[in-house]
């Protein structure tokens, strides 16, 4: 048994009253077994307790010692005497708890984090006074002290009548008699459905008319329909079907040619072939990536007041699109998003840092700590809801009210992510042997050239000083670039101490190179910066900029003290270093704040510093020329030196290019400090240290307190992606169902806990989940099964018997029609007009003009170029700033996870579609297209327009009306109108 946490002694009992101190620690694990694993009988579970009690007796020696040092003294003589009769919990004790205690310490409220409505919590105690009940020791039980008023100002209950002496006597007797809390069978919760193992039931035998249903999905659905005396609808016609499948799977309409081909395809496997074509198209990944990006709260700006754009966050979007298009096994998709750095796909970890991030930092520690807690909460919550359908975030301040998630579990998961930082890092390329060789050769060449250049510099210095030894000075310190070359030295930390500067000194980047030419100072390599202090109130001047690989004043560190300051870099492991490069402003815009007097030291062991470079051997003078030494060389030497310089510059650039991939907003990782449980989530109230882990009720990761950072995420990812995890597959197949039918089998797609919905069709959910895992976690496999079903292929037409009992068609007696999402509407408008630009991937387009300042502001564009006609998944989504036309269609902001979009219907949507420049311009393009593709004949134009927009011919009424409108109002007006029709905007 492991004692969880340190017991904070709250009481000292006067020695003469010290009763045998039998410590009883409730066993949370055992309790959970009883509650969530019905395979363990209560008797076995109680056996577990007994063992724990014995261990506790042994440990009580320790706690007894601890108690002796604590403060307030209780006068136990004031305790009412214990009752002498045998006490019954249900008859005598429970009524007292219910009447006098549970209004503040029950399911609704937990004052002091204490609740008296379950044995576990009642015994364990709240934030203070733990353990609250010590069986056989009523005089030592805080519960008794508090109800008897022994603790000043804490007499319980604080509201209502105090307990009588008789009642207290009963409580004491109950405790002294062993505090037996019988197991009310009603109080033992059955295992929550979502936590039970997935169970694949055989497909039910159901008839549809006279045929036995052969598709398992249809069979499960038909069973539920039959309970309401309903059945599937007739099969939808082919043109409805192909339009539906395109809108659902691609978010785009089929072309008239595709419709025609499919409608005329008489092969028996025509539908099967169509589904394969649809799933193989790259449009599929773009459509379904948008769904996942909702779940991952992805947007491309930092949010909050500065709201700076994240110019290279798009790598994560591309990663999601490619993963879906390639039908990457979902378990791998999970692992890469949590620990892609370990699973060979760097871009995946964009998931972790896709949320909003407040870059405004302050010297105020309270603020900084809370910000960090919020950042981590964002990662924990999103991971919990996205993959597990568990609201882990609810346990940040207290144990989850509904689900078996302890507060400790929240912090265990937080510890998994505690080393994740919101930042960019270069995506590693796949290293090949060839590239390694190339790198080594380059480096050897560079080293030779550097030493040759050093010789010339010495020669120049000698020439300048007239050959006097000890006066070989390096060029004066400058703002743009300074280099320190020294004999290789092993170090775990480097410190740069500034002794003089103008104003508060600043450094935009401090680079430290090893013998292989790698910059080991980079935060992305795990190096952590610290500093004497950082100038407050300037988001652009942050300590993290010191080693973030970004240069220039707006990505720099500035000290909070005029003329002084130090920065220190701690490497994650011992490094051999030989060159340091630093600058005030690499971009050359600022020349103030340069460190003019400094020393650089390295340490292998903490505190043992050795100077490796300093300002002493520089020439004096401000704006010096790093190339100044050349003028002290002869013409021939100067030329060689200059060539060497250029070759070194190019060689270094080449090295970086070979070893680093592109930079991306995918987070950096560093070894975190220990994670503490925080009382009520307050970072100033740290409690016990918590090891990285998962949800105790569902298993353990077996990680140590100081587990290496990456390993934490790897283990959590593997635990989530384990086929035995009861939640993972269920949650994902339900999301697939949700995006196909508009509502999931569980209509709370990110909440499979007790507060979420029950599955509408549990057998079907489990069948799909099992099929998903068996298929090797193939998303496309599950989708194809669903798309092949009659349930998907049936008509959307309403039928009175269905409307009467199931108006929402939750049971799927028809395909439920629904309005398209914002992105699909925009994409469909572009597809119809012919303006759609299908370029995939890379940086997105913007629909807003940016005014960049300390705080960025965005204003809607009114004029568009073809770049803005790409699919909307490629829109650079700026937090807080909705697109001025399509935002009103319930487009998520990316600030919070959006597992299920609302579908509102508002006059603003109508105004945007009817009046916006965007739609009017597209209507013009559509008109041009109609003239081009259908001649000047209005009848032909109408036909072509209906084919393009709704995939069918117009009926006589529509034809007549349309021709009249084209005649009276013009083709542009006709096109503007069609963009506003229900059929165009809905999937049926």
């Amino acid at each position, binding site marked *: 048994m492991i004692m969880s946490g340190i017991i904070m002694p709250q009481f000292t009992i006067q020695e003469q009253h010290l009763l045998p101190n039998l410590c009883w620690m409730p066993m949370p694990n055992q309790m959970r077994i009883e509650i969530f694993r019905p395979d363990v009988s209560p008797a076995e579970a109680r056996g577990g307790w007994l063992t724990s009690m014995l261990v506790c007796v042994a440990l009580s020696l320790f706690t007894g010692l601890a108690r002796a040092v604590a403060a307030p003294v209780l006068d136990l003589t004031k305790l009412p005497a214990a009752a002498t009769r045998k006490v019954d919990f249900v008859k005598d004790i429970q009524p007292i708890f219910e009447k006098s205690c549970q209004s503040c310490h029950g399911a*609704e409220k937990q004052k002091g984090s204490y609740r008296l409505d379950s044995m576990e919590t009642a015994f364990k105690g709240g934030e203070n006074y733990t353990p609250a009940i010590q069986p056989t020791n009523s005089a030592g039980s805080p519960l008794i002290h508090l109800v008897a008023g022994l603790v000043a100002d804490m007499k319980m209950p604080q509201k209502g009548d105090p307990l009588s002496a008789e009642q207290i006597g009963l409580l004491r007797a109950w405790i002294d008699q062993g505090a037996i809390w019988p197991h009310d069978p009603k109080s033992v919760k059955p295992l929550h459905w979502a936590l039970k193992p997935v169970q694949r039931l055989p497909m039910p035998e159901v008839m549809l008319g006279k045929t036995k249903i052969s598709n398992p999905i249809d069979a499960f659905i038909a069973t539920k329909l039959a309970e*309401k005396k309903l059945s599937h609808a007739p099969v939808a016609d082919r043109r409805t079907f192909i339009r539906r499948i395109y809108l659902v799977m691609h978010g785009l309409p089929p072309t008239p040619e595709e419709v025609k081909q499919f409608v005329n395809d008489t092969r028996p496997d025509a539908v099967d072939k169509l589904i394969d074509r649809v799933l193989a198209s790259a449009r599929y990944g773009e459509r379904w990536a948008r769904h996942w990006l909702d779940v991952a709260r992805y947007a491309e700006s930092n*949010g*909050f*007041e*500065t*709201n700076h754009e994240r110019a290279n966050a798009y790598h994560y979007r591309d990663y999601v699109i490619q993963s879906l298009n390639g039908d990457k096994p979902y378990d791998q998709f999970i692992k890469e998003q949590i620990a892609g750095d370990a699973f060979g796909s760097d871009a995946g970890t964009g998931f972790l840092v896709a949320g*909003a991030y*407040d870059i*405004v930092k*302050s*010297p*105020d520690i309270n*603020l900084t700590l*809370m910000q960090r807690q*919020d950042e981590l909460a964002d990662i924990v919550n999103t991971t919990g*809801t996205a993959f597990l359908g568990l609201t882990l975030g609810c346990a940040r301040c207290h144990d989850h009210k509904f689900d078996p998630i302890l507060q400790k579990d929240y912090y265990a998961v937080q510890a998994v992510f505690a080393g994740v930082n919101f930042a960019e890092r270069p995506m590693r390329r796949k290293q090949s042997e060839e590239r390694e060789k190339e790198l080594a050769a380059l480096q050897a060449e560079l080293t030779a050239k550097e030493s040759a250049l050093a010789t010339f510099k010495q020669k120049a210095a000698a020439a300048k000083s007239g050959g006097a030894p000890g006066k070989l000075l390096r060029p004066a310190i400058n703002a743009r670039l300074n280099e320190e070359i020294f004999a290789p030295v092993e170090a775990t930390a480097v410190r740069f101490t500034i002794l003089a500067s103008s104003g508060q000194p600043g450094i935009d980047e401090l680079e430290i190179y090893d013998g292989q030419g790698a910059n080991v100072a980079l935060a992305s390599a795990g190096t952590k910066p610290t500093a004497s202090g950082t100038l*407050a109130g300037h988001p652009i001047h942050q300590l993290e900029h010191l080693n973030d690989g970004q240069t220039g004043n707006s990505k720099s560190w500035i000290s909070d003290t005029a003329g002084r300051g130090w920065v220190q870099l701690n490497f994650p492991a011992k490094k051999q270093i030989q060159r340091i490069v630093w600058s005030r402003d690499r971009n050359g815009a600022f020349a103030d704040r340069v460190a003019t007097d400094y020393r650089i030291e390295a340490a292998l062991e903490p505190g043992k510093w050795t100077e490796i470079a300093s300002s002493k051997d520089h020439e004096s003078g401000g704006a010096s020329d790093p190339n100044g030494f050349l003028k002290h060389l002869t013409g021939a030497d100067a030329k060689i030196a200059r060539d060497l310089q250029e070759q070194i510059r190019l060689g270094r650039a080449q090295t970086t290019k070979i070893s680093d991939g592109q930079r991306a907003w995918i987070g950096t990782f560093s070894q975190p400090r220990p994670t503490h449980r925080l009382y009520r989530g307050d970072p100033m109230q740290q409690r016990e240290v918590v090891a990285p882990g998962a949800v105790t009720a569902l298993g353990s990761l077996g990680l140590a307190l100081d587990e290496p950072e990456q390993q934490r995420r790897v283990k959590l990812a593997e635990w989530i992606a384990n086929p035995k995890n009861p939640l993972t597959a269920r949650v994902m197949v339900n999301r697939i169902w949700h995006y196909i039918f508009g509502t999931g089998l569980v*209509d*709370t797609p990110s*909440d499979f806990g007790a*507060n979420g*919905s029950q599955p*509408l069709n549990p057998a079907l959910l489990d069948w799909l989940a099992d099929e998903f895992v068996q298929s090797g976690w193939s998303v496309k496999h599950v989708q194809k099964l669903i798309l092949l079903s009659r349930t998907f292929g049936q008509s959307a*037409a*309403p039928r009175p018997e269905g409307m009467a009992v*199931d*108006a*929402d068609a939750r049971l799927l007696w028809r395909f439920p029609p629904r309005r398209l999402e914002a992105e699909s509407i925009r994409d469909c408008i572009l597809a119809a007009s012919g303006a759609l630009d299908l370029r995939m991937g890379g940086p997105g387009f913007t629909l807003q003009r940016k005014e960049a300042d300390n705080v960025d*502001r965005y204003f*809607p564009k009114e004029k568009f170029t073809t770049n803005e006609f790409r699919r909307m998944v490629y829109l650079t989504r700026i*937090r*807080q700033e909705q697109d001025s036309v399509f935002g*009103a269609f319930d487009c*998520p*902001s990316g*600030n*919070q*996870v*959006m597992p299920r979009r*609302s*579908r*509102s*219907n508002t*006059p*603003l*949507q*109508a*105004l945007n579609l*009817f*009046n916006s420049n965007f739609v*009017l311009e597209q209507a013009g393009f559509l008109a041009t297209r109609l003239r081009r593709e259908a001649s000047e004949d209005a009848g032909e134009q109408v036909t072509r327009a209906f084919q393009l927009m709704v995939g069918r011919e117009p009926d006589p009424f*529509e034809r007549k*009306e349309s021709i009249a409108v084209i005649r009276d*109002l013009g083709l542009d007006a006709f096109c*503007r*109108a069609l963009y506003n*029709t*229900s*059929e165009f905007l809905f999937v049926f």
Partner: protein
Amino acid sequence: MALPERIHPFLNRRAFLSHSATALSAMALTQLLGRDGLLAAETARKSPIRPKIDPANPNAVRQPHFAARAKQVLMIFSAGGCSHLDTFDYKPELIKRHGQPMPGGDKLVTFQGAQGALNKSPWEFRPRGKCGKMVSDLVPRLGDLADEMCFIHSLKGKTNTHGPGENFMNTGFTLDGFPSMGAWTTYALGSANDNLPAYVAIPDPRGVPQSAGNCWNPGFLPAAFQGTDFNAIKPLRNLARPAGISPEKDRATREFIARLNQHHLAGYPGDTELAARISSYELAANMQLSVPEVSDISTEPAHVLKMYGADATGNRTQEIKAGYARNCILARRLIEKGVRFVQLLNGAYQVGGEGTSNWDGHKVLKSQYTVHGEVLDQPTAALLSDLKQRGLLKDTLVVWCTEFGRMPTFQAGASGRDHNPSGFTGWLAGAGVKAPFSFGATDDFGYKAVEKVATVYDFHATILQILGLDHERLSFYHNGIERRLTDVHGEVIKEVLAA
């Protein structure tokens, strides 16, 4: 039928209709439970109330949980952190100890760092109104209305950074992405006027606050409850008939759409989501008439323009003031038309250095606040008086607030005040509010709220209470959590409610 219960409030009109019966009986029950739902609070379990939304008319009027004291809200938000010490929180001790160090202040680390000495306000405080409330010369006209106001001097925030602070005051959460107070209000109550947006946010002439859209966004609530942002100079986007299209052609096109949609609807009899789309075009057409009408303040008589200061000219400050005054007139007109929630924004994001465009007076408080006071005072005071004289305060709750207050000290080496969320002032006026009244207090220097501390949650809970809404029950289910404006906190400040 016993389908799983997590019907999305906005999913389907059919779902709406089938739920109406239960909603009605729940409403009747709550009405039986007394004016403030106190009985309900003490006896019944605080189960969530999720208003049932009719998709055909998402902003149809809905009943409050219990009898409301106010029906509409005018929220005035001063962005940047308006100093309570230079406006409404009179601290004689601060004046007396001007120039001395604040006890314990040398160790304080606030948002930008170290503190200098205590600094009295550059503006004198004088007794105002019949009640004699001490208000500074920075906002004298507002001071003259002290008899109408209920000051809460003990507000306490959670963050000293603008973005999270503005989020907190406007949405109840420091993080981005939560529904704004106006979104919650319209989600709960709808609006009496179909032809205008239920919730209008009027941006300052200088721009939007630092939390921008967060201040009026719907967060995860349906987009129907989004604040619509426009003012006299920035009209509602996509409202106007496009240039080059005649009114006749525009109307004929709209009629053609309606015919096609009606024709299509015939194939889906009884489909209310489709029917709702058709009616949204009618609402849009009404809005095209009524929004320009309400925004057109040229019909206001000259004496009204003058009263608000909308005629101010001469320099940049006066022009901003005139712009803000026009926004104030627009606010009154919207309230007059029955718009449920009007949010009037005062101050913008940071442009031209801190404190220039909003109340963020870190370094040169006096010169910057001279501008901000001039812009705020007369137009806002005129708005309040105008609402009163037109009898609109009977049903309208007026809320003035900011993201946090400022320090009683000047920042080390500067002539301005740093952020201070530990104690600041907001005020209420109008329907449902006890006035004149001052609730709670900061310490002798105005640094920390010490007497009857009111959290921002309490402030929000009280506003909802005045609207007849139980802040513990008004909820929306999102991503696994039954969300509330007040999260899991907040207590109604009963002392500030009108008797």
